[in-house]
C-alpha cells in the first residue's frame, strides 16, 4: 500500500486522535496567549483612532520618523546595550580565563561571583538606588571617607553620570552570567589542541587567538545573543534607578513603550514601536549568527 493512502486509513485516524487530543491544550494555550495577542497587536499598530472613527494605515509608523523621544530613546538603548555588552563580555571572558585554572579558593570565587545574578532585578535596582543616593548613599559616603569631594557626584541625577550609573549596575549584575557560560565553554574544550599548539611552539597569545577563541565560539554566540536581547529590552532596573531621568537621559525604548501604552493609553503607537524593536533585535541576532556560526 502506498504511504499516502495508509496515512488516511481508518486505523491511522484513530491512532492520530489521541496524540491530537494531548497536543490540543498546548495548541489552545499557544493560540490564546501568543498567536492571538500577536495578531491583535499587529492589527492595532495599523489602526488609528480619529474623530471620524478607526482609520487603517501606517500612520503610527510614519509618526515614528518625527518623534524625537522615540529617536532619543532608541539611541539610548543602543548606547546602553553596546556599552554594557562590551564591558560584560570582556570582564566575563577575563574572569572565565582566570578561574579556568586550578587556583586555591576557586569554588568560593565562583560562588560569590554568582550572587548578583541570582538577585531579582528589582532588588538590585533598589539597592543600587540607595547606594547611589548622592546625600545618604554608601558610595559617596565611602568616597568622603577618603577625602574626595562628592558634591558634583550626583550619579543618577546628573545627565552625564546617569547613563554610566545604569550601565555599571547592569555590568555588576550580568557579568557573572557571561562568566558562567564562557567558563562552561572553556571547560568543554579538549586538551589535545592545546598540546598540539604547545608542540608547535605557539605563544600564549597565539594559543588564545587560534585555539581558545575559535573553540569558544558557540558559547560566545549564545552569550552575546542572550545578553543583547535582554539589553535591548531593558526595563526594570532603569525604571527603579532613574525612571528614565534626569530629563530623558536614561530613557530606553522599553520605558518609552511602557509609558506610551500604560500612561498615555496609546496602544497602537506602542505596538508599532515594539515591532520596530523586534525587527531590530532580529536583524542583530541574524548578524551575530552569520558572523559567529560559520568560519
Amino acid at each position, binding site marked *: 500500500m502506498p504511504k499516502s493512502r495508509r496515512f488516511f486509513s481508518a486505523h491511522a485516524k484513530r491512532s492520530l*486522535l*489521541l496524540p491530537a487530543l494531548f497536543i490540543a491544550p498546548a495548541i489552545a494555550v499557544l493560540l490564546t496567549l501568543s498567536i492571538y495577542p500577536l495578531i491583535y497587536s499587529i492589527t492595532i499598530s495599523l489602526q488609528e483612532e480619529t*474623530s471620524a472613527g478607526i482609520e487603517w494605515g501606517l500612520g503610527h509608523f510614519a*509618526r515614528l520618523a518625527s518623534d*524625537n*523621544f522615540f529617536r532619543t530613546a532608541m539611541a539610548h538603548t543602543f548606547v546602553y546595550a553596546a556599552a554594557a555588552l562590551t564591558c560584560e563580555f570582556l570582564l566575563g571572558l577575563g574572569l572565565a580565563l582566570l578561574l579556568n585554572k586550578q587556583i586555591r579558593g576557586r569554588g568560593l570565587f565562583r560562588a560569590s561571583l554568582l550572587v548578583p545574578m541570582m538577585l531579582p532585578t528589582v532588588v538590585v535596582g533598589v539597592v543600587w538606588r540607595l547606594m547611589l*543616593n*548622592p*546625600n*545618604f548613599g554608601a558610595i559617596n559616603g565611602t568616597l568622603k571617607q577618603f577625602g574626595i569631594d562628592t*558634591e*558634583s557626584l*550626583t*550619579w*543618577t*541625577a*546628573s*545627565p552625564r553620570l*546617569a547613563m554610566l550609573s545604569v550601565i555599571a549596575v547592569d555590568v555588576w549584575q550580568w557579568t557573572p552570567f557571561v562568566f558562567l557560560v564562557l567558563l562552561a565553554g572553556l571547560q568543554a574544550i579538549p586538551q589535545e589542541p592545546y598540546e598540539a599548539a604547545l608542540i608547535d611552539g605557539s605563544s600564549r597569545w597565539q594559543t588564545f587567538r587560534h585555539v581558545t577563541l575559535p573553540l569558544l565560539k558557540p558559547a560566545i554566540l549564545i552569550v552575546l545573543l542572550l545578553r543583547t536581547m535582554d539589553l535591548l529590552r531593558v526595563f526594570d532596573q532603569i525604571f527603579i534607578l*532613574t*525612571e*528614565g*531621568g*534626569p*530629563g*530623558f*537621559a536614561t530613557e530606553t525604548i522599553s520605558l518609552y513603550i511602557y*509609558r506610551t501604552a*500604560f*500612561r*498615555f*493609553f*496609546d496602544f497602537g503607537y506602542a505596538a508599532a514601536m515594539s515591532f520596530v524593536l523586534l525587527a531590530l533585535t532580529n536583524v542583530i541576532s541574524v548578524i551575530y549568527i552569520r558572523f559567529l556560526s560559520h568560519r
Partner: protein
Amino acid sequence: MRLTKFLTLLIVLCVASSTCQRTPHPVKKQLTLAVVSGVEGDALKQAAAAYQSQTGTTINIAEFPYSNLFEKELIDLKARTGAYDLIMLDDPWFPRFAYEQLMTDLTPLLQKRGQSGPDADFVGTSIALCRHPYQTGSLYALPYVGNSQLFFYRKDLFEKYSLKPPATWPDVLAAAKTIQEKETEGANGGKVYGYVMRAAQGNAAVADFMPIFWAFGGEMFDPSGKPTVNSPEGIAALELMLELGKYSPPGYANFNADDVGAHLLQGTAAMSINWPAWISSFSDASKSKVIGKMEFTTLPGAQKPGQAEIGNWLIAIPRTSLNAAEALEFLIWATSAEQMRASALRGNPPTRKSLFHDKELVAKYPAYPAQLRSLENSRPRPRTPYWNEIENAFGIFLSKANSGELPPAEAMNQANAEIEKILQRAR
C-alpha cells in the same frame, strides 16, 4: 469508540455543571471597589468593612499600587467588563475618564433619592473637580481626600535669622540664601540646604513647578487652547526654580517625594512645597529630627497671589456597574461627614468644610486652617484628557533644565513644541 463516548460524557458533564452554576443565587447585594494602596485606600477599606457589617452588602476590594491603578481602571472600563462598581480616581485622571464617557452621571441618581445635587458642605474647589466640564458640567464623582499643596518651612530657623514668613517667591529665594550661608551646623552635623524640591521628570517636577509658574502669571494654554509655557512669565518662573535649585541638595533633579521628605525630616533642608500627608510624620519621634520646628502655610505668590495645586482623590461609579444605585448608597455613606471624619483621623485631609473646623480634628492637625485656605484657593492641573502625556513631556524638559542639560528658555521652547505636537495629534 470508547474514547468518543467518554469524551461526549465529559462534555455533557461540563456543560451541565456550568449551567447549574448559572442558575441565579438568592439576590445578595455585592459591590466591588478599586482602591489605591496606602493611607487613602486604607480609609476606604475600613469604611467598606463597616458598611458591610451594617448593611449586609458584601464589598469586595481590588487594591492596586498608585502606579498601576490608572491603567487597571481604564482597561477594565474601556473593555466594559463591569468588574468595578466604584473606583478611586486621582483628580488629574478624571478628564480622561469623563472624556471617554466611562462614568455614571450622578445627578439623576441623586434626584431619585430626592437630592438636587451634592452636599453644600463639600469644598467648592473639590466638588468642581468632579464635574465635566470642570466646575460647570454634570457630576460624575464625589471628592474623598482633600489634598492640596502647602508650603513647609523651618519656623526655628526663620526666627533665628529674623526672617519674615515667606509671602513671595523672591522672599523664599532670599531666605534660602540666608539660611544656607549662615546655618552651617545642621541637625546631623552637616549643612542645612535652603530649599528642597523634586525635579524628577514627570509628575514630580511639574507638581513642584506649577505653583511658581502660576504665581509668575504663567498659563499652560491660552484661551484658544494653544500651549504657552514658553511665555516670558513661564521662562521667568523656570529661572526662579533654577535659582532655588542652587540652594537645593545635590541630585534634586532626580528627587521624588521620598527624597524631599527625608531631607525635611532629617533637618537638612529648610523649605519645600509638599503635601499634607507628610505633616504628621514631623511630630513622630522615630522619623523626625525637627519636632515642633516646622510650620505649614499657604503658597507664596509673585506677580499673582500664591495658589496651590489641588490633588484630590475622587470616587466614581463606572458606567458599566450593574449595581449603580447600590454603589451610590455606599458612595454617599463613605463621603458623609461621619465617615470622612474617621478617614481624617487616619490621616486623610477631608473635603468637607465642617470637618476642617471640627475641634477634635483641628487639635490633632493644627495645620487644618492653613490647609483649608490652601484648598479653597487651589487650582487644578489643566483639565485635558491628554494630561498624562503633556505632564510627561513638560516634566522631561523641566528636569532637563534643572539638571543643567538645557538653558531655561530653550527647555520651555522645546516643551511648548512637544505639547503642541501632542495636542495636534489629539485633534
